[in-house]
């Protein structure tokens, strides 16, 4: 039986800039920031209350999985906002929204009542969409 998710990937345009966004704007913590053989940077962040779920901030670069053209295409798609980074939960969507707006986070939609709670839609600094959700209790 699978018990949890340990890692999920967010493709970003620049790891340093993404780290600044997820750490200093969203308030995530750095999990790993390791130089791996082959020049690969293994960079993960996590919400303070969930160290067991690491988000891998990875740049699509030419390598074993992507050829040059594919890496370029993925970068273009990120910039166009074609990818979603997932759903981040909060206890108070309105307050978190206001806090993030003050920090310069770009929102596509302010807190709005949905069937499952209150949700705002934002972009990270690569162009990935993410939802900020306050679940119905």
């Amino acid at each position, binding site marked *: 039986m699978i018990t949890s998710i340990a890692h999920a990937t967010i493709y970003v345009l620049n790891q340093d800039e993404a780290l600044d966004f997820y750490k200093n704007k969203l308030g995530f913590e750095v999990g790993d920031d390791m*130089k*791996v*053989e*082959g020049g690969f940077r293994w960079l993960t962040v996590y919400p*303070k*209350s969930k160290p067991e779920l690491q988000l891998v901030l990875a740049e699509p670069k030419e390598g*074993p999985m992507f050829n040059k053209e594919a890496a370029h295409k993925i970068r273009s798609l990120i910039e166009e906002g074609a990818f979603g980074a997932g759903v981040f939960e909060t*206890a108070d969507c309105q*307050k978190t929204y206001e806090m993030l707006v003050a920090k310069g986070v770009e929102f596509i939609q302010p807190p709005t009542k949905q069937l499952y709670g209150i949700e705002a839609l934002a972009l990270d600094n690569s162009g990935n969409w993410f939802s900020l959700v306050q679940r119905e209790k």
Partner: protein
Amino acid sequence: MAMGSKIKRLNAGWEFIAEHFNTPVSLSDVANHSCMSSYHFLRAFKDTYGETPHELLIRIRIEKAKKMLITENFSVSEICERVGYISLGSFSSLFLKQAGMAPTVYRRKLWSLSSEAYCFPSQAIPACYAYHFLGKLAK
């Protein structure tokens, strides 16, 4: 205390521990920093983050030590001090508990696996990522 304010205070405590991991950090220091009593801070911290401030401090120290063991040439004793422990025995036993092996064994093992000096081997990250980004499958 309003929910937002409580989280802000707890986060301030969390950050305090992360910033001062290499110094002696007491519960009362962190609670004072968060403007809460030690009793309430401890309870609220555990409820919010799922670990006590002390468990967080140990986790951060051991993670820093793991990184230093691979990317720096300091001795284990130096690393022990640099992550905030006075006793090498305490450090080694906490490291063993968290990493599953002694610090020297951890360093020797990972260094022997890596093809580059002071770099983590591909085996240190999940295989799906190692294959995806490095084209390597662990043997």
